[in-house]
């Protein structure tokens, strides 16, 4: 039944996408982030829904009137350089057929980000895209929160199988990243019931994050709470709200949860943490021995590679976005990746400075601030998780391009009007 509904919806959307290509970006983002076909459990898994929507979007964009490339900003070129580098790398991967399979996911994510950056030319489109991202992940967040409460927190909250967020740790990080974006929507919506509903869904999502038992996500949650504290005007209310929500949930969780969280302070004896350290070592050795290329997508975690360095140990995933890129794409790949992250922080700070206190651009300021908090969650939580090419991260960075463009255009338009007023005979001197 779910399969029929999903396939009917996607095929029903195709004519709409050809007419309105940005609708294609929305559906494309939904399929990439929520992976609804993995939740349908049937024949829709064998249909390349993502490719169909992507194809319709690209075709619609090519024939649309507002066909344009993304703003040519430093971030845009960094994306292009990164895509070229990982593609070049895949030709020389230790197991090319294995590497190309993951490259196929990565290029689609980056192209989706660039299409979103090119076509999100106004606030309504940006707003709609953020809603799609939030709905896609709140689907798992609300469900996971209810699951945690009804089962007494005994079981781990997991994501959809065969996806970036299938693992409990990765799902928790994704949910963490979406909280600031949901907060932006809550601040921007005119409907009070929708703002309240969003706040409740955020509460359930926090419970789901805790119910994932992910220690990396706990550190990320702490970072988000701290970053949020510096972004809000109502600090006392914020602290009270966080305390009222988080403390009872921690009390509610069973002893197994507390034991797992306490193991963060016993890193030297914790087997799971030592496994991560081993995976980081393998990633470094791969980057060193295969300089400057690395061993290709998800190469270091293959038994053949892992056991070359640590024979007898169980092969682990990289468990860190930084070591993941280092092992897979070498020092140069990691360098480009870090430049991309740094550029995202610099650009979001620039947008915040540019739009602070500018009437009509408060939304721009809020969105840049919330994207920044989402990126902080990614950088902190991702230090212990393999989610380097995650769609929400790519979209977060890509959306800074139209956001900056809109901010520049609006501020420039105001400056262009101002001298005319000042030059009028008898005009009063400026007081501010």
């Amino acid at each position, binding site marked *: *039944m*779910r399969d029929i*509904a*999903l396939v009917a*919806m996607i095929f029903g*959307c195709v004519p*709409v996408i050809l007419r*309105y290509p*940005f*609708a294609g970006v*929305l*559906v494309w983002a*939904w399929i990439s982030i*929520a992976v*609804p076909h993995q*939740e*349908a459990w049937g024949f829709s898994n064998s249909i390349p829904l993502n490719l169909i929507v992507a194809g319709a979007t690209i075709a619609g964009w090519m024939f649309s009137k507002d066909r344009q490339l993304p703003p040519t900003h430093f971030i845009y070129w960094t994306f292009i350089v990164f895509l070229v580098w990982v593609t070049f790398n895949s030709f020389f991967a230790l197991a090319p057929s294995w590497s190309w399979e993951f490259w196929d996911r990565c290029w689609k994510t980056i192209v989706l980000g660039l299409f979103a950056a090119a076509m999100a030319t*106004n*606030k*309504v*489109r940006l*707003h*709609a895209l953020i*809603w*799609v991202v939030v*709905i*896609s992940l709140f*689907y798992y967040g*609300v*469900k996971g929160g209810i699951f945690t409460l009804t089962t007494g927190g005994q079981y781990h909250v997991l994501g959809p199988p065969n996806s970036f967020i299938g693992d409990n740790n990765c799902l928790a990080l994704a949910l963490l990243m979406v909280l600031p974006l949901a907060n932006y929507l809550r*601040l*921007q*919506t*005119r*409907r009070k019931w*929708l703002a309240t509903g969003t706040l409740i869904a955020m509460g359930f999502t926090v419970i789901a994050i805790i119910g994932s038992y992910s220690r990396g996500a706990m550190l990320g949650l702490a970072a988000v709470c701290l970053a949020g504290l510096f972004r809000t005007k109502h600090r006392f209310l914020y602290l009270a709200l966080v305390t009222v929500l988080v403390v009872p949930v921690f009390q509610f969780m069973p002893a197994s949860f507390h034991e797992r969280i306490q193991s963060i302070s016993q890193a030297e004896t914790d087997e799971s943490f030592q496994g991560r350290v081993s995976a980081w070592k393998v990633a470094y050795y791969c980057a060193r021995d295969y300089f400057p290329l690395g061993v290709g997508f998800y190469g270091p975690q293959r038994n053949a590679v892992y056991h070359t360095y640590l024979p007898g140990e169980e092969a682990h995933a990289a468990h860190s976005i930084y070591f993941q890129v280092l092992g897979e794409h070498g020092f140069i790949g990691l360098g480009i990746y870090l430049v991309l992250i740094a550029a995202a922080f610099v650009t979001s700070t620039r947008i915040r400075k540019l739009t602070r*206190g500018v*009437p*009509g*651009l*408060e*939304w721009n300021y*809020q969105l840049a601030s919330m994207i920044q908090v989402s990126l902080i969650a990614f950088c902190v939580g991702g230090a212990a998780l393999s989610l380097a090419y995650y769609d929400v991260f790519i979209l977060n960075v890509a959306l800074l391009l139209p956001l900056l463009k809109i901010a520049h255009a609006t501020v420039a338009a105001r400056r262009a009007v101002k001298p005319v007023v000042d030059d009028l005979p008898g005009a009063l001197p400026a007081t501010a």
Partner: protein
Amino acid sequence: MNSLWYGLAMIAIIVVVHWMITNDGRADDETTGVLAMKSATKDGLGGKRAKRKKFSLEDVR
């Protein structure tokens, strides 16, 4: 229950797509529908203060 939740998520996406097509290019206060956005002047400082500072001929006299 799970299927209902799945269906709701699908409907929510359709609502967002429809809202985007209907409101594309409109200013904040011109947006309509479930996802209508707050007017820019009502953000930040709050609508009350914005209304209080509204220009009036009485101020000139």
